[in-house]
């Protein structure tokens, strides 16, 4: 090559200037509203600031306060419990719905898919207001139905487990159809020849379910577990609308993001809010990693 490589590169870049222009808005925007805030939040995490006065350096005070604040740990615990209460039934129901819809002789598949998916596009604020009415202590329809069956009435929004049940059921209602649609697509992508071959080899329906369906569905299940982990850790609107900024009776509905919101924007502890943001980031990263290991584990020897 007669042209030195550096000149060559500069020439290549110049030649592609229009292409760089085309992709630049994303990187500019990310630098200003993504990268810079992340650096800035690291800085803020070591400072005390109310958003108006001076920022004062306070070292690890924010983080040590966070680690010793029982309310923070309660928020972490609540978030995990609501995540478990919602994710397990949600993915289980989603699998059932997907299997029912996958049966070859079922008609009106599109109609059913739309019906199951509809809750997912509805605004969470609206959903929270509707569920507040369903779970209301005195006049809620849930208590009415329980009364019809002679079950003891529950003051849903006053007892810790009732609060968690209400929040979890909102998540389940909203996301079951979404996950069912994804499982259905996963089921449809398994070649039918595999089942036919298994049948010729004398496999029963149950055997081919555990030997073919479940292993081939594993990546899809992993996807739904990871997305519902990330979503579950970010629960905010439901508890905020249903219970207010303090997470209801005894803080039983206080989630990590609600705590972050209250400390930052209601109490104006901006430095501390940034610290909580980092705490949350670490929890999500660690937890996603563990989940990934568990779900992926056995098949990837």
């Amino acid at each position, binding site marked *: 090559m007669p042209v030195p490589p550096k000149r060559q590169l500069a020439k290549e870049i110049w030649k592609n200037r229009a292409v760089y222009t085309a992709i630049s*808005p994303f990187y500019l925007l990310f630098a200003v509203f993504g990268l810079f805030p992340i650096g*800035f939040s690291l800085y803020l995490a070591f400072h005390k600031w109310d958003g108006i006065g001076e920022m004062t350096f306070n070292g690890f005070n924010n983080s040590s306060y966070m680690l010793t604040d029982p309310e923070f740990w309660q928020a972490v615990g609540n978030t995990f419990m609501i995540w478990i209460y919602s994710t397990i039934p949600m993915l289980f129901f989603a699998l059932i719905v997907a299997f029912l819809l996958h049966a070859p002789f079922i008609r009106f598949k599109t109609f059913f898919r739309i019906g199951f998916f509809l809750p997912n596009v*509805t605004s*969470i604020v*609206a959903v929270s207001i509707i569920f507040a009415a369903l779970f209301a202590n005195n006049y809620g329809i849930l208590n009415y139905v329980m009364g019809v069956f002679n079950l003891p009435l529950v003051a849903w929004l006053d007892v810790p487990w009732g609060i968690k049940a209400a929040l979890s059921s909102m998540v389940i209602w909203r996301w079951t159809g979404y996950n069912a649609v994804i499982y259905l697509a996963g089921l449809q992508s398994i070649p039918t020849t595999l089942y036919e071959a298994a049948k010729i080899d004398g496999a029963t329906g149950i055997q081919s379910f555990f030997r073919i369906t479940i292993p081939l569905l594993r990546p899809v299940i992993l996807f739904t577990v990871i997305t519902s982990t990330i979503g579950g*850790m970010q629960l905010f609107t439901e508890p905020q609308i249903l219970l207010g900024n303090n997470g209801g009776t005894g803080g039983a509905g206080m989630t990590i993001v609600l705590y972050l919101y209250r400390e930052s924007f209601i109490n104006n502890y901006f430095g501390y809010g940034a610290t909580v943001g980092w705490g949350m*980031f670490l929890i999500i990263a660690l937890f996603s990693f563990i989940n990934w290991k568990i779900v992926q584990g056995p098949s990837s020897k």
Partner: protein
Amino acid sequence: MKQSKFTSFILYLGLAIGLMISMFPFYWLIVMSTRTTSDIYQFPPKLWFGGELWNNISRVMTQIDFFGAFLNTLFVATAVTVLVLFFDSLAGFAFAKYEFPGKKILFVILLTTMMVPSQLSLVPSFVIMAELGWVGTFKALIIPGMVNAFGIFWIRQYAEGSIPSELLDAGRMDGAGFFRIYFNVALPILRPAFAFLGAFTFIGVWNDYLWPLIVLTDEKKYTLQIALSQLNGLYNTDYSMIIAGTLLAIIPLIIMFLFVSKQFISDIAAGAIKD
């Protein structure tokens, strides 16, 4: 193999029960919005429609500037959607069909940004908005959201398979530059992919709650979700009005979803299955 009538009956029954659970809250929302507040507080609950819908709706309109909040939301969601479609398709097309120095690393950076949770930068983002003087304006809602990694990734996948390279070569032979080729060749071919990305973006912005709650300080600029939450907090003695407002706020979304639902659902599923 013939399925027995019984099996098929059981499967349809399961689906019907699931569908009823899925639809019941919508039904209940409509029932409550046609009732008076004292009806709603009655036990046993009234399970059938009443005649108070217009009355409830007119109270929503007088208590808060519902129409204003509706227009605000429509404006913000439309602006973000149009900008996202433009910028994402431009970048997605470039990544799909052009070779340039640094392409690989730039694309990896793009994918990595999708993994950062937005709450991490919630406080600093607000501070930046305050510094820029954008708190309380629509700029705070529109500008940070006007291009995103997910959409670029989505368009790139679509463009790779759908735009024939010969067509681009032909354009280049005619002396057309990148932007000319984008507008005249790529854009028409990419249009079907816009339906999903557009609906996805629009619904997301329409439903956004946490960020608008933080940056919208002026009542005149409230979006529907914020207006609804205010209604819920301030007027909770007039429950039938709140419920009627809730109904009004989700009707446009549901109509829009029903229009694009078939494509929308299969694209969501396809995005999760490919990777």
